[in-house]
């Protein structure tokens, strides 16, 4: 669950990135966050990951009140969140398997569990044949699938996808969102930041529009694929 209560973020430079934003995303929801660049989308992601702190207001993520969260407890919070980046951010020196297993090693998961869980997640994103490939041997779409598998492997309550279709072919974008929708159907909350309006129109659902640091639109719309 994500809850922002009257949250404002002002950077040291004086720029107001978020201005009295209130928002609630319940467990199991799928929400698109749209808005032009500089609207405050990235600031919101940084806020949810506690990379930055709110200047005002309360931020609650998966039961953690981020204002009260101590620095050494940040890893605990982040282990409940899966993150997918636009530029994939895979470790080039690691294979697909290692890139995903790495997340479980970070949380000190038992070796047996890693050996069972990683191939399962790789099969969920349909990359069994590429498990031993290195990132440079994969296409953009495949790399993003690895990134999604990595976000998923720890069974997080929330996945934040920051422009996950931004660096891949448009026809593959639909596949990626389908994949995220499938994960959401299993109960994981998904927050997908995008500026691709066609994609949003196609899938529909909850759409949150941020403009100049304020929420100007927060509605549930029917998608083209439902019609």
């Amino acid at each position, binding site marked *: 669950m994500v809850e922002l209560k009257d949250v404002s973020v002002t950077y040291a430079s004086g720029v107001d990135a978020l201005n009295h934003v209130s928002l609630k995303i319940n467990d199991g929801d799928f929400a698109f966050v749209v808005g032009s660049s500089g609207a405050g989308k990235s600031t919101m992601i940084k806020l949810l990951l506690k990379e930055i702190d709110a200047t005002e207001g309360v931020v609650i993520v998966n039961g953690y009140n981020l204002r009260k969260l101590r620095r050494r407890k940040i890893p605990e919070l982040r282990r409940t969140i899966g993150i997918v980046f636009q530029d994939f951010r895979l470790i080039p*020196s690691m294979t697909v398997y290692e890139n995903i297993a790495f997340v479980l090693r970070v949380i000190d998961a038992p070796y047996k569990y890693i050996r069972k869980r990683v191939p399962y997640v790789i099969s969920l994103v349909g990359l069994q044949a590429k498990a031993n490939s290195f990132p440079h041997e994969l296409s953009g779409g495949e790399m993003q699938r690895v990134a999604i598998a990595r976000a998923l492997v720890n069974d997080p309550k929330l996945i934040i996808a920051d422009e996950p279709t931004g660096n891949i072919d448009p026809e593959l974008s639909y596949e990626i969102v389908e994949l995220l929708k499938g994960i959401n159907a299993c109960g994981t909350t998904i927050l997908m930041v995008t500026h691709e309006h066609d994609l949003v129109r196609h899938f529909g659902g909850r759409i949150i529009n941020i403009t100049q640091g304020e929420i100007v639109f927060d509605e549930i719309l029917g998608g083209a694929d439902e019609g």
Partner: protein
Amino acid sequence: MKVSGVRYLVQQGVDNVWKNRMMAFASFCVLLVSLLLVGISVLAYYNVNSIIGGIEEKNEVIVYFNDNTDDETLKEIGSKLRAMPNISEVVFYSKEEAYESLKASMAEYEVLFDSLGDDNPLVDAYRIKVNNIDEIQSTIAEIRKLDNIYSIRAPYDFVNILVQLRTILTWVMGAIILAMVIVSMVIISNTTKASVYARREEIQIMKYVGATDAFIRFPFFIEGMITGFFAGCMALVITWLVYDSVVNILQNQVALLNIIGMGSIIRFADIYIPVTVAYVVGGALVGAIGSAISTRRYINV
């Protein structure tokens, strides 16, 4: 953390040395040069100090007594001298011994000695060696307080030169070693920073997936330790070879050895244990700590 987790992190550290071998090699070279410079400076300092000590040993203070001093009083003074804290050796040198020695050294002037007959113009004396030559002045002042002393002969000028030389040497060597340690730390820290910077994305990803700071730092720590360990081993081998060659050259310089004394040069075989420990442990520690400090900057995501 579980044993398997620690094993994984150690393995990561070992793998990283090979994966980042260019950076590891750069750190290795910097550490090697730094360790060699500091190590050779320290060894040179100890040798020079040992040589000065050897020269000191050859110096003695001679205390002459009034001609009429009886044997009882001389014995009493002898035990007083032995009781003084800075005096290491007290040897009685009778006027008869001195006379014989003088006659032997001036054999060509035998006529002169014949003219003296049985009359011995010399006086009894004690030959004294001091522990700490720096304190020779105060020791002599204390000796002067004793009765029946005719005169004291001490190598003041020579002592002063030695003491000054050692003081200057201590400061100069200390400054050189300190400067080298600081310069080495700065260079190592920057080399490691470059290595950490090259992997900043990896560190960021680790942070985003919930890695603790300790988890991120540990492989860098191991990597630095391994690099430092090998640099220490290599420095040890080079030092050993260079040191033994220099000692071999010096051992052929008979004239020089006559001045400084054969035993003044420290043999490598006598010091290889502390040198090995210092190089290997020092290298591993500097490498490990340098790496751990450098990761701090990129860890705050």
